[in-house]
């Protein structure tokens, strides 16, 4: 009876700690988060009592494998984690628990007929484990954000928990077969715990570094845009200067016509001049000042490079993005298109970008299509092998903006390159 009560208490500690670890790195998908502990506790009890207890050392191995499987399924169902994330978190989570347990087991050994004091020390091992988890949460909670948005990081780090668990399985078999104690193996357990924690630190460090690089690139792009704006303004002033010079000449001609009483010719010339000024001054207007500014700027750049633009643009005044995000989204999409069109123009002589902005069911659909010289590879909805030119980063910035608003982003490359954003 006492053994059962202690087992239930120990399993409660374990379930609580496992949930605590999952909460550190993943968001719960349940509406009533309070159920996540009882669900896991009940599942652990079922698994433990389903596996027939035997004296064989393989009992612990089977229990270990079953618990990992249970935790993977639990993580997938209860947390907003992909399969890979769930496997990573589940293996690392349970391996940490097992390794902490082993650290003490290797020092104090296994008591086949444990007293109450021994059972209390087993609870103490769990307390130590929970304290370690609390330290992990305090220092590494920032990792949650990166893990939830990008499982690419995990693929490089899955080896840490996997190899740790293999070590764990080996030593588990050894300790339960031989019942010996060893400070050396205890130190190995500590080393494995440390390696896993260090790997988490490393992941966080790399993720933060990558974010800083992205921010720096974004700032660089912003500065480049600013420089481009100034260059644009400069060329606009130069163009206006030339136009004013032309208009001055036209006005002199007009004066000449009026002096010679050639009224009809004077009227025709005035009409031509007026139309020319209207064309020069006309700009895209989609109902949003920042969208207008970006589109007009990119259109001017495209025109300057001999690239045409086809428009199917609706009202963008209800677009959900803030000013910076609008610049990132439209700026990156159109810059990529312009860059590709430049290559096409060199090879084929002409190119045009097709820009669509449409409203659909309270969403804004933005499509940019452009011809390409060489098809690019699209893998899992992302362009590969463009990082060295900076364009992969541009599209990944677009993707981040879209994901922030729970929107959709897709790219394809067959006869032409198509990028679609629904936001």
């Amino acid at each position, binding site marked *: 009876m006492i053994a059962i009560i202690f087992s239930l208490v120990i399993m409660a500690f374990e379930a609580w700690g496992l949930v605590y670890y999952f909460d550190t790195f993943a968001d719960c998908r349940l509406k009533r988060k309070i159920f996540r502990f009882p669900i896991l506790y009940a599942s652990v009890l079922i698994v433990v009592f389903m596996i027939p207890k035997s004296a064989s050392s393989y009992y612990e191995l089977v229990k270990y494998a079953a618990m990992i499987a249970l935790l993977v399924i639990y993580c997938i169902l209860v947390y907003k984690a992909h399969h890979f994330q769930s496997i990573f978190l589940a293996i690392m989570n349970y391996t940490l628990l097992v390794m902490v347990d082993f650290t003490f087991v290797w020092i104090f050994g296994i008591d086949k007929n444990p007293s109450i004091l021994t059972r209390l020390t087993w609870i103490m091992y769990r307390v130590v484990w929970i304290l370690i988890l609390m330290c992990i949460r305090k220092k590494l909670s920032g990792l949650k954000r990166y893990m939830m948005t990008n499982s690419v990081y995990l693929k490089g780090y899955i080896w840490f928990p996997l190899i740790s668990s293999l070590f764990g399985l080996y030593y588990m078999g050894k300790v339960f077969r031989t019942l010996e104690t060893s400070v050396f193996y205890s130190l190995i357990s500590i080393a494995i715990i440390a390696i896993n924690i260090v790997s988490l630190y490393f992941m966080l460090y790399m993720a933060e570094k990558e974010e800083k690089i992205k921010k720096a690139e974004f700032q660089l792009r912003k500065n480049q845009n600013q420089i481009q704006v100034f260059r644009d303004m400069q060329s606009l002033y130069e163009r206006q200067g030339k136009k004013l010079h032309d208009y001055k000449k036209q006005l002199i001609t007009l004066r000449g016509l009026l002096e010679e009483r050639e009224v009809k010719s004077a009227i025709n010339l005035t009409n031509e001049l007026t139309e020319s000024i209207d064309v020069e001054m006309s700009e895209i207007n989609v109902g949003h000042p920042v969208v207008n500014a970006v589109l007009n700027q990119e259109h001017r750049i495209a025109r300057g490079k001999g690239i045409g633009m086809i428009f199917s*643009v609706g009202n963008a005044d209800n677009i959900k993005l803030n000013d910076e995000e609008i610049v990132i989204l439209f700026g990156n999409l159109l810059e990529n298109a312009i860059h590709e069109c430049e290559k096409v123009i060199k090879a084929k002589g002409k190119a045009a970008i097709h820009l669509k902005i449409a409203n659909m069911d309270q969403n804004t659909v933005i499509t940019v299509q452009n011809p390409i010289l060489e098809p690019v590879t699209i893998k899992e909805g992302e362009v590969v092998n463009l990082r060295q030119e900076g364009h992969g980063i541009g599209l990944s910035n677009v993707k981040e903006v879209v994901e922030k608003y729970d929107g959709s982003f897709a790219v394809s490359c067959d006869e032409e390159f198509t990028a679609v954003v629904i936001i």
Partner: protein
Amino acid sequence: MRVAICDDDETDAKRLRNLLEKYDDEHGIGFIIDEYLSGMDLLKFIRNNKNVDIIFLDINMNGMDGLDVARRIRKEAIDVPIVIVTAFINYALEGYKVQASRFLVKDELEKTFTECMDDMVRQIQHKKMNMIFSCVEGEVNLSLEHIIYIETNGHKSIIHMSDNTLNLYETMEMLEERLKNKGFLRVHKSYMVNMKHIHKINNYILQLDTGTEIRIPKARYKQVKQDYILYVGRAV
């Protein structure tokens, strides 16, 4: 394909005609091109003969302007694609409000015309697309846009239209090959849907505009969503 050009400037109209003829020579579409110097003439023609496939419309015309013409065409529920061609880019949004398909700037016409026509011709051909299916009921010539979805049932496939169903002995793989790039999407090993009739995709459930729901397997979900997003982006 019948194309109407409406522009009171004969030079601009001729320029557009030349571009159309050049495009026709390169692609062998078979255009019949009509020119109208005023919006009223165009409207008169359309009312009497609604068999126009594309209209190229200038905005700044004497009398009735192009936007007014487009509004009247839409008011009479005529669904013909309209391409606005103008020197003034600030009319882009106005063009959208009259459901113009495209908006081209006159002084970029030579650069944009081919891309625009490729897209328009593709859309028009796609809309008119018919295919012959060997059904249990016999050979049937179906307009693809009326097919809602196709499902397999044992060795047979069932084509679901808005008002009836047809059975045929083609496998889903054969149908997928035939209907590839024609607006159909394989969402399940037993289901293929016409993307035009998708109402929404959410939480692994695809809902058609008829109310039918199809569960999408997790393994296909991401790709199905991607393909649908691309379809929506191209179709708007």
